């Protein structure tokens, strides 16, 4: 594969960004939900 660094790099950046963003979302969701009862969560 020519330019493998660029190609694999672009996949790494894409999937890495997805992982970081997903992880942050899950984490903030957990932290915030800790102080709340289920009655306060409209999605449940």
């Amino acid at each position, binding site marked *: 594969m020519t330019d493998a660094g660029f190609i694999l790099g672009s996949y790494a950046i894409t999937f890495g960004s997805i992982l970081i963003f997903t992880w942050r*979302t899950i984490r903030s969701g957990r932290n*915030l939900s800790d102080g709340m009862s289920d009655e306060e969560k409209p999605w449940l």
Partner: protein
Amino acid sequence: MTLDPPSTVSTTSRRGTATAATRAVGVLTIVMIGWLGVFGLLLSPADRDQGDAVRIMYVHVPSVWLAYLAFIVTALASAVHLFGKSHSMQADRVAGASAEIGVVFMAVTLVTGMLWGRITWGVYWQWDARLTTTALLFISYIGYLAVRGLEGSRSQRARRSAIVGLLAVLEVPLVHWSVKLWRSLHQEATVLGTDLDVSLDGLMLFSLFVGVVAFTLLFLWLLLHRSRVLTMIDLSAETGLDAALAQRRAEGGVTA
């Protein structure tokens, strides 16, 4: 500084923002992203002129698709907030969550596009119509997120950002058709062009399709979780205020 958690927290509190539906979408997303990696990097062929650089397309195009989708959802939710009778705060939160997701994937689009440009054009960046309008779109939505955080009451902020959300989305068609409007170095749209004659090899098209499906599912998953997080931020801001007031009253010797 930290307030003690309210004593009313019930023992049935479930952690996080997941539901059965989001878990199902999440599992599907992971599977599709796995397939995207397999098709994009292994199964799809190299391009005659671009060589393996064409593989970057399978993450670049779905990223920009997701960003467009996110900004359109922001605009729709903004319209629901602004023109709906109830001025729904939930709509405002969906708009905000969607814009956050869109900005992340716009950044991914720009970076992967630059890497692709370096290989095929020989330069990372060109001030050409498509690239310039894309950069402006990215910057505009950072501005939108900044507007959301500006000073003001909750309803003021929601109203302001809804107006910005409706204006900023006008850039999306401008970016998409910039290659037709102005002479540009960037190639014209291959799949979402005006004619339905798709000039793309079968397996290449399929890889792109896998990417678009994977990223659409990812958007759905992120939007559900992100807007739930924003709901809790709003709730804790309200209850935080109530708790602070209660505390002051207690200190002042007043029983509420």
